[in-house]
Structures are given as C-alpha cells and as structure tokens.
C-alpha cells in the first residue's frame, strides 16, 4: 500500500487551474461547434477523451469521478435530454480511467490507444443502457458504427493526449 502510494505520488501529474478549467470548456465548445462545419465530427467525443486524460493523469478515482460529473453535466446542458445522462457515463469512465492509471503505464501510445478504444466502447454500452433502462427510449445498437466510433476516438485520443502532455506542470 505504501509502495503504491509512493508510486502514485511519483507519477501523478499536475496541471494549472486554468488548464483544468479551460481545456474541458474548450473541448465542449469544439464538440458543439465543429459539427456545424464538419457534420461527421459528431462521431468524435472530445469531452470524454478529456475526462479520460485528466483521470489517468491525476490517478485519483474520486477526482476522476467528479471531473466526469462536471463535464458530463455541461454536455447534458447543451442537449435537450435530462441532465445526468452524460454525467453518469463520464463519472464511471473517469473512475475506471483513474483506477487503471494506478496500475499500468498510461504514457505509452499503444496503451493509450487500447485504453481509449475500450473506454469508448464501454461508454457506448452505458449510453444504450441508460437510454433503454432509465429513460425507456428505444436506441438501436449498431456494432459496426460503434466499432468505427471507438477506433476513430482512440486514434484522435492518442494525438490529443500527446498535445495535452505539453500542458503538464513540471515538478
């Protein structure tokens, strides 16, 4: 336990407060604006990628949970759907990403690719479950669409994570 804590403290990355506020807001803004110019951009989920990144960087499941909660509620506020749908999804993904960040090396691009792919698929499953079980709405599941979406997001996530690495504060 003591060893894990020291490793966690050693690999925990820090960001400025401005980064923690501006980056999520920018991701939500781009997610809302870019589909106007590029209709296929709706396939990408930038806010979720940002949640995953900050969760694995902070390596704190509670921080990851609340980070996911805030970004998810902001995403929900832009839709006409009940508040909390993206909140629940992002909370769970943030929690899991932070938990994984404690155990494996998440700075490796290959690991990031796999991690993003799995998290995006998990996010889709959670979304369908929430719509069907909580809201009683019929949402169809298309395997091919979800796989393509996960692959695209995983690739974009690798690039995005590399860019966000530059915003880390040096110890």
């Amino acid at each position, binding site marked *: 336990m003591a060893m894990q804590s020291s490793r966690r403290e050693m690999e925990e990355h820090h960001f400025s407060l401005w980064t923690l506020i501006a980056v999520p807001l920018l991701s939500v803004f781009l997610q809302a604006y870019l589909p106007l110019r590029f209709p296929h951009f709706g396939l990408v989920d930038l806010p979720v990628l940002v949640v995953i990144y900050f969760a694995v960087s902070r390596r704190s499941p509670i921080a990851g949970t609340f980070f996911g909660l805030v970004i998810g509620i902001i995403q929900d506020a*832009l839709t006409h759907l009940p508040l909390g749908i993206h909140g629940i999804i992002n909370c769970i993904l943030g929690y899991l990403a932070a938990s994984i960040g404690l155990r494996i090396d998440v700075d490796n691009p290959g690991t990031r690719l796999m991690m993003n792919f799995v998290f995006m698929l998990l996010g889709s499953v959670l979304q369908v479950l929430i719509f069907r079980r909580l809201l009683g709405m019929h949402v169809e599941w298309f395997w091919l669409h979800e796989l393509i979406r996960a692959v695209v997001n995983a690739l974009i996530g690798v690039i995005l994570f590399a860019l966000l690495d530059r915003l880390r504060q040096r110890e």
Partner: protein
Amino acid sequence: MESFLSRYRNPLVLLAVVLAQMVLIAVQVRRPVKGTDGRQTRLARYGVVSVISPVERAFLFTGHGIVNSWHDYLDLRQVRAQNRELQAELSRIRVEEASLAEDARQNGRLQKLFAFQQHYVASTVAAHVIGTSGTDLSRVLYLDKGSADGLRTDMPVITPDGVVGKLRDVFPHSSQLLEINDPTSGLGVILTESRLRGILRGTASGQTEIIDILPDEHIRPGEPLVTSGGDEIFPRGLPVGTVDRVINDPARNPYVAILIRPAVNLSRLDEVLVITQTSDTIPTTMQQDMATSEQKAADILAQRLPGAIAPPATGPDGKAQPPVDVNAPPPPVRPPASLHPDRYTPGATPPAAQLTPGAPYSTQTFAPPTAASPVAPASEAKAGSAAKKIPAEKRSSTPPAGTVEIHTKPKRSAADSNGATPAEEPRN
C-alpha cells in the same frame, strides 16, 4: 465501520454520485412540466449556454468575416453573368407567380366558403445557427436570436427549402432549435398525391419517418409531403420532404414505415427563418408582391410576344379608357389586318352584282383594297343591303382597344365546302 468507509471510499463516492444523478434523471423525466424543463434544470442549461454561446457566436462571425471577404472578391468576378441569370430567373418566376396568383385567390375564396382557416406566414426573424448539442443523440441546434428578438417557445423554424424544426427552449439572446429528425420531435404531415396524413418523427440514427401506416396504402418514392397544419405549430402547406422508401416496421407489425428524405439538408444549416407570426389572411406584403408580379408578367409577355397582348387602352386624346366590362359579351373575333392586302383579303371581294361573268380578274372595275381602307369604298357604296347592315367599326380589322386578339383560321367559303381541295385553291 470507519475502516469499511476508508477502504471502499472510492467506489462509495462513485456509487453516491451515480445514484444522485439517477434520481436527478428520474425527477426530470417524471415531472410533467408544461413546455420544456423545470426551473432548476433550465437554470443549469441557461448557465452553460450563456458561457458557450458567446464563444460560438464570436467564432462564427469571425470565421464568416474572413470567408466572406474572400468570397466577395471571387463573387465580384462572376456577378455580372450571375446578375443576368438572376434577372432571367426572376422574370420567369414573376410570370409563374402571376399565373398562380389567381389560383391563390380562388383558393382563398373557396376556403372562406368552407369556413376553413388557412394560416399564412406573416412575419419571420432570420437567425444564424451558431452551435449544436455535440451529440448525435440530441438533434438540437443553437440560434443566435432569443426572446429579446421576439422568439418564443414552439415557434416553427424553416428555410426557403422547407421545414427545419421548432424552438424548444428560448433564452434571452439564444435559443435551442429541435430538428425534425430528433426522436422526440413530431410533425403533422400530409402526402400531396395520396393525401395520406401522418406524424413525422425522427429516429435515433437521424432519419425521418412516418410510422403506423397500413401496407395497402399506395405510396410511391419521390412523392412530396407538406405540413398538414394539424399540429397547430406549423402553418399548412410548408414543404417537408419527399418519400424515400417504404419499409416493414418489425416493431409495429403489420404496419409499415415510410422513410422521408427531408427537403432541407439538416446537417448543413447556416441561416434559418423563425416564423414569429401567422395570419389567416394573405399578408399585405404578399399581396403587393402578387400585384407587382402580375404587372411585371404582363410587361414581360408584352416584350416577348408583342402580338399576344393588346396595347394599353387609350382614347384618341391619349387618355386612358375606362376598363373593359368583363361581364359584357365578347366582341366578334376578326382576322388581323394584312400588311399586303390582295383579292383574297377578307372584305376585299366585291358583291356579285358588280362582277361581270366571264371577265378576267384584271378587267374587273372595283378598287383593290389598301392597308388604310381594306374594303373598297366604291364597292361599299354599291353593295347590297346586307353589306349596309354591317356597322363601320365592326368592319375595321383592328380589334377594339383593351381586348386580346385571337388568331383563328378564316372560315372556308361555300366553294371550299363544296369540295374544292387545297390544291385547287388559287395561289398568290
């Protein structure tokens, strides 16, 4: 207990947060609030929209400014040719509109007769699309106009191509537009040819469809559909789209679903029109436009087909004549004046009493007609009583002012009707 909480602190926090959000969702779904959201959720949405919208608006207008400057330069080079094309198109549309204006008036009279209240678009507000919801599960767009510009919830939104959706939530300086392809939207439509009515809904994949249709309905792809006005939001008759195909609906057997191709490209919207007011009479601006179109159409036709439309009615003093009474019987149809009169010109043949049997045509003693007086005065003076009965103004080949001249074949003479073939007819 303390060790349990400290040991499972992380999953417990996650569980608590997720449960809290589930309760939040349940409350929002259960609450039957008229309109859109409860006060608290609306406040949350307003807060987020207030932060995001100004940035989106700034981005949009900055981007538009740069792009427009470049496009202005490019457009300037093509503007003359484009102007000519537009003028020609405008002329064509004027003529079309003029021909439709009378139908519209008749339609209005009939609707009055049946006490049917038609709603016309009286006023609109143009708005820019500045953002989306960011997810495919919620087909909403954000507009840069809000309640400060006179927008209200449930106002219909259109483009010149057709229906886009309706306003779901209106904030002071922005508003949320729910597109017709969202699963929660509903729009009363009618197919123009089969006269089938239905409710257009969106699907989770962003398509639009009409469900609960019996399979024996005769619907063919390409059939257009318009708003029915039954939803009391959209005025009747706005174009919605066309039938794409009819598919079996396994969820609602034995009904089928009609997939619709929207008239508007919903994924590429820049500007929209919000209908802020409708009226049950044709708006004044539309009436003026129709009157202008009719006048312009007459001018265009007069330019292109000088013979088809008579010159404006003016008297000998140059003043305008009173309008022709439309209830009066139409004047007799007469052939037009010929440019080069000859013996075959109507009215040029002298009465039989003046002709010498067996004499050649050149030795006949009647005056040939002239352009100024097609009928020879000499022959007229000696004509029988039948010729005298014809009034002078009716003998003139020029039609009365203000009437449309109709070109008809001259009646065949008695000789023709007695078996003379065209080959036997004399030639000039």
